[in-house]
């Protein structure tokens, strides 16, 4: 029952998202294409965090670092006139994965609150590094002159085309994520989250699997960063600010940890809420803050837990 219900929710979500551009076109409101595209980009970031946070039990408070690295990979190539998207995006993924490897090697040795704080500290370091990159605009960041080019295959300047590229990537990551967490690899990191001493006692050496998951999540979030740079046509160290890591984390919790689809829902709802609330009052954070507390205290399974619950 749960499976079919979940499948219905998933399919309905995919159809709804696919319908955004034509509906927005019909209503002459192209802005919603931009808004939902931005939501889906953050959904990819949140999804990648769910892999290590939800399934791997690694509470990374520095996930925004990869968002920044991915964005800078695209931005720096563009700065030097290289706008080939295949190259830009591959490097965005590779560079983020490499950074995740270095951060992971050091931080996965620790656990609990130490892990939270060391990931936070690394991201702070990258944030300050970004600020001191004078050539690339320092704290101002820099504009992306042209969106990534894909040899005429797809034109990202077309809002709908870009939208469907993001949607396709999101669905691809959902599929990959689903397969991955249910495959042997996923079983290892999930068992280590559930009971690490037990996992070691039956013969798993969780470190390298956790590290691999950390690197994969970093790479995926790097791609989200590349997309975000294209979405914003601008990139700044602000993408790596620690509050941004907190927001991505909140998307995961809001939507429902360990569900993959939940974080997508969380990203849509949180960014939607921000958009609506900030139009209502400049004091919107006084509503958002307690909302966050209430969600954490009383809705542990997240929104996806609510909509896909049996019976």
């Amino acid at each position, binding site marked *: 029952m749960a499976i079919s219900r979940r499948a219905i929710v998933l399919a309905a979500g995919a159809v709804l998202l696919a319908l955004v551009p034509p509906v927005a076109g019909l209503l002459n409101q192209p802005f919603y294409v931009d808004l939902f595209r931005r939501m889906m980009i953050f959904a990819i970031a949140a999804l990648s965090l769910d892999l290590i*946070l939800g399934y791997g039990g690694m*509470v990374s*408070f520095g996930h925004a670092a990869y968002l920044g690295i991915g964005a800078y990979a695209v931005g720096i190539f563009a700065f030097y006139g290289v706008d080939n998207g295949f190259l830009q995006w591959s490097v965005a993924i590779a560079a983020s994965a490499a950074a995740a490897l270095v951060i992971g090697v*050091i*931080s996965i*040795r*620790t656990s*609990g*609150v*130490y892990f*939270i*704080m*060391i990931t*936070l*500290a*690394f991201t*702070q*370091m990258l944030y*300050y*590094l970004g*600020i*001191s990159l*004078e050539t690339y605009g320092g704290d101002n960041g820099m504009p992306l002159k042209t969106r990534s080019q894909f040899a005429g295959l797809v034109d990202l300047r077309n809002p709908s085309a870009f939208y469907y590229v993001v949607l396709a990537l999101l669905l691809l990551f959902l599929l990959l994520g689903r397969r991955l967490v249910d495959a042997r690899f996923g079983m290892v990191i999930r068992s280590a989250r559930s009971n690490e001493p037990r996992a070691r006692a039956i013969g798993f050496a969780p470190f390298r699997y956790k590290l691999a998951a950390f690197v994969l999540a970093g790479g995926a979030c790097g791609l989200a960063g590349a997309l975000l740079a294209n979405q914003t046509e601008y990139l700044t160290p602000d993408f790596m600010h*620690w509050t941004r890591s*907190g927001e991505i*984390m*909140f998307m995961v*919790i809001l939507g429902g940890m360990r569900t993959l689809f939940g974080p997508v829902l969380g990203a849509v709802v949180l960014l939607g809420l921000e958009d609506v609330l900030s139009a209502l009052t400049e*004091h919107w*954070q*006084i509503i*958002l*803050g*307690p*909302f*966050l*507390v209430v969600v*954490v*205290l009383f809705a*542990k399974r997240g929104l996806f837990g609510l909509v896909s619950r049996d019976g």
Partner: protein
Amino acid sequence: MLLVLEQGLNGLQYGVMLFLMAAGLTLVFGIMNLVNLAHGSLYMVGAYLATAFARWTGSFVLGALLALPATLLVGVVVEVIALRTLYERDHLDQVLATFGLILFFNELVAIVWGRAAIYTSLPPSLSGSFVLLPGLRYPTYRALVILVGVAAAVFLYVLVTSTRLGMLIRAGASNRTMVAALGVNIRRLYTLVFGLGAALAGLAGLMAGPIYAVQPGMGEQILIQVFVVIIIGGIGSIRGAVAGAMVVGMVDTLGRAFLRPTLSTIVSPAAADKAGPALASMLIYLMMAAVLFFRPQGLFPTRGR
């Protein structure tokens, strides 16, 4: 040479500020196992209340004396309403819920006092500087900060080592069920400890008011450095908080003062100008990564965790 001494004092003073923040945070973590990002908000509340009371009474000292119990009270209220239920939750929930509290407090303060930084005054006797050594003038207020910080550290030391409350704190940090078995009301103990931590943060905040900008969000400027302090020191350990605060205060201050000039003797001055400030801002994070690489539990790990 005098300059190095002066910078050492500056480092000490900055370390003291960090310690006042870190002590409360590490106590709360050590005993209730709670990661409280909103600790910075209590620091902000302390600064605002001290300023408001000082304006109301017309006296800086009276303002400070009133703000301390008031911040303690705010801490207790927050504990009872929101945080109490978080003790049994995992760190993830705690981080997120207290992140939400940060947003709430910043906005609340903005609504009550406005978004602009507010004016904080010092009595004339404290606002100048005095001759510490021939050739070395030092701001009077900074010297006071050092004294208050050291006094707070001594107070905490006495409290923890030779009072019944301190005994319970030490016991509670290592064994909760044992404390419960002693017939102590654990809930009340937790509330008390949280209030104490809040008062310490408030003390840091009210001391900070006259030097720093009192405005919404001021807590987050210092919060992350405070986390670095307790990570380096070892979470839950007051001794660790002292050591971590001194290390971070010194490294940060001396790094800012001397890193660029030192670098310029090694590499070209132009390169030093570029790399110096960037490196100085990353220094404490690098140090923390290094400490954790070699000692994943910090310098003074607490038992059983």
